[in-house]
């Protein structure tokens, strides 16, 4: 379904000419060479903290953000080479589910109008057909059609997220890229939304890219899991038995925090004061197992056992 190779997305921070004396332009490597495949019908999980580049990755794959390097192929076609009707078709087939439904729903419009938009953009059906379709989709996310008259501001967080989900589903996509679909929601509501998402996936045979910092959720719902750290994938393996078989020190660190192990190497200020353009493994400053090579050469993502990929010198 998806073939990502060497995806890079860099941001250049330019200061105005006066400030440049003290702060030279520097490059933020949000996504720094990511490669992975997503099979049709699979739930591919990506675990990442803030700063890992996961959101940038999601947006780039949705072509909401430009590419600095590498390729993204969807069903064999280069996404960034698409234009016109092919691009429109891509957008119809690959839909996002974002975190903050507050900002993705226009507060001025009522729900019916918000949900009508995708159908209008792609000129699907006439008035009656559209209403029918919207009503059906609302039912699928457990909202009654009466919600069409309401405004997003009148809805609870969970309801808003469901409206956003309905909007993504209206175009009958093949893929959902969900970036933190449940963070910020109460636990009962979050579970509800997750259950809904998984049920819809089953019913419609969707391919889902689930991106979250919540390990438990990703390990529960995904078929395969990738762990991102500072723009790179450091580990990629099957979700079943992931906790037991993981190797990369960062993954072990995350798992340790999850289980609140007392001797987990506590990292003070993990994301602070790090130079982006340093060569070598991005985790070297915090890694308890670092070798000499780790300072100079970034480890490639290589297969340590069938289906299990790790980017670590020490793991070899």
């Amino acid at each position, binding site marked *: 379904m998806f073939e990502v190779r060497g995806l890079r997305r860099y941001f250049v921070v330019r200061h105005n000419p006066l400030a440049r004396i003290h702060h030279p332009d520097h490059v933020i490597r949000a996504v720094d060479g990511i490669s992975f495949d997503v099979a049709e019908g699979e739930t591919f999980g990506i675990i990442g903290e803030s700063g890992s580049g996961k959101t940038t990755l999601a947006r780039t794959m949705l072509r909401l953000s430009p590419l600095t390097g590498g390729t993204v192929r969807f069903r064999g076609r280069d996404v960034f080479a698409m234009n016109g009707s092919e691009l429109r078709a891509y957008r119809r087939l690959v839909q996002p589910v974002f975190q903050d439904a507050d900002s993705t729903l226009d507060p001025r419009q009522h729900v019916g109008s918000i949900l009508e938009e995708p159908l209008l953009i792609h000129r699907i059906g006439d008035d009656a057909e559209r209403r029918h379709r919207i009503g059906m989709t609302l039912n699928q996310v457990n909202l009654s059609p009466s919600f069409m008259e309401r405004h997003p501001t009148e809805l609870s967080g969970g309801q808003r997220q469901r409206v956003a989900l309905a909007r993504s589903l209206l175009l009958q996509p093949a893929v959902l890229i969900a970036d933190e679909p449940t*963070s910020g929601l109460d636990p009962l509501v979050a579970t*509800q939304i*997750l259950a809904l998402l998984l049920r819809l996936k089953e019913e419609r045979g969707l391919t889902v890219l689930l991106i979250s910092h919540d390990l438990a959720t990703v390990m529960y719902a995904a078929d395969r899991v990738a762990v991102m750290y500072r723009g790179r994938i450091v580990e990629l393996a099957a979700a079943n038995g992931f906790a037991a078989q993981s190797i990369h020190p960062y993954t072990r660190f995350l798992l340790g925090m999850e289980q609140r192990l007392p001797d987990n190497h506590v990292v003070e200020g993990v994301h602070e004061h790090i130079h982006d353009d340093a060569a070598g493994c991005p985790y070297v400053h915090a890694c308890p197992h670092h070798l000499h090579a780790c300072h100079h050469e970034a480890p490639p993502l290589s297969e340590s056992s069938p289906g299990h990929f790790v980017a670590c010198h020490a793991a070899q």
Partner: protein
Amino acid sequence: MTDMLRVSDLHVHFDTPAGVVRANNGVNLRVASGESLGIMGESGCGKTVLLLSLLHLQQPGRIVRGRILLDGQDLVPLDEREMERIRGRSIALVPQNQATALNPAYTVGQQLSEALVIRRQGGSLGAVVVRRSAPGDSDREEFIRVFSTLGFEAGPALDRLLRSYPHQLSGGMRQRVLIAMALLLQPRLLIADEPTTALDRAVKAQTLDSLQRLRRSFTMMVISHDIETISATCDRVAIMYGGRIIESGPRAEVLAHPHHPYSRLLLRAQRRERGEPLSAINAETLDLIHFPSGCPFHTACPDALPRCANEPPGEYSTKDTMVACHLYHTEAG
């Protein structure tokens, strides 16, 4: 052990054009001196209103009934001036939103000094003018003391921290600063409101670490819907729903063997075991204006009895646990 805080039959209402919102409906809770109580609940359960009521910040809501006893003194009838002495000094709040709770125009050191001024002058927040000078030496000693409690040792890093502005710090660091500020006031009661809404795992771990250290020396109330947070920081836990405490008891006991059907749902919903279906129910938010008769949970309750629709349950307690549920009426008494 004496009770540091004791809330009795607290009712807080809000008048809105749509009707009266019953945010708190007979809240009873106790926090013993030196103990740490967790309050779990989702949005709309009334925990925020409860918290604000302790500090008389519940406007435009009004306390309709009930008593709030802090070391035996009832806070409800106090006027604004008297409450100003209580706020920050007797009861200190670590606010939820670490990103915006600090003033971006002053350094960390300056804002912490402000807290010390409040404490020393015994004055209210309104009387303080933040001085633009650097903190003095005695201030620094206090800072060192407080930060070491949080596991942050004195040294160049601390100096740098004191000279920094809030926007230069990471979320975790800001959270620590907020906790430090609350500590400097040497409160009798420390309240942490949703301290781990920070998204980052690393930040969360740091914050929990700080809070755990505080447990030893302070009486605390931690408000959160997150099991991990409550587990790490509390001795006892109370679960809120529909403006009432519906279950309370020793933390380990309640988390491992919840009694109330809502508690069970709340705790079970956070489980993610591969192969097990998710326990999700269609729990719509409770309408606090048109309060259902009887037990507020009865419409969504999987174990509801006929009487649940008509009779609000009382509080049924055994020696240190309490459940507000008809299912347990016969067991306890």
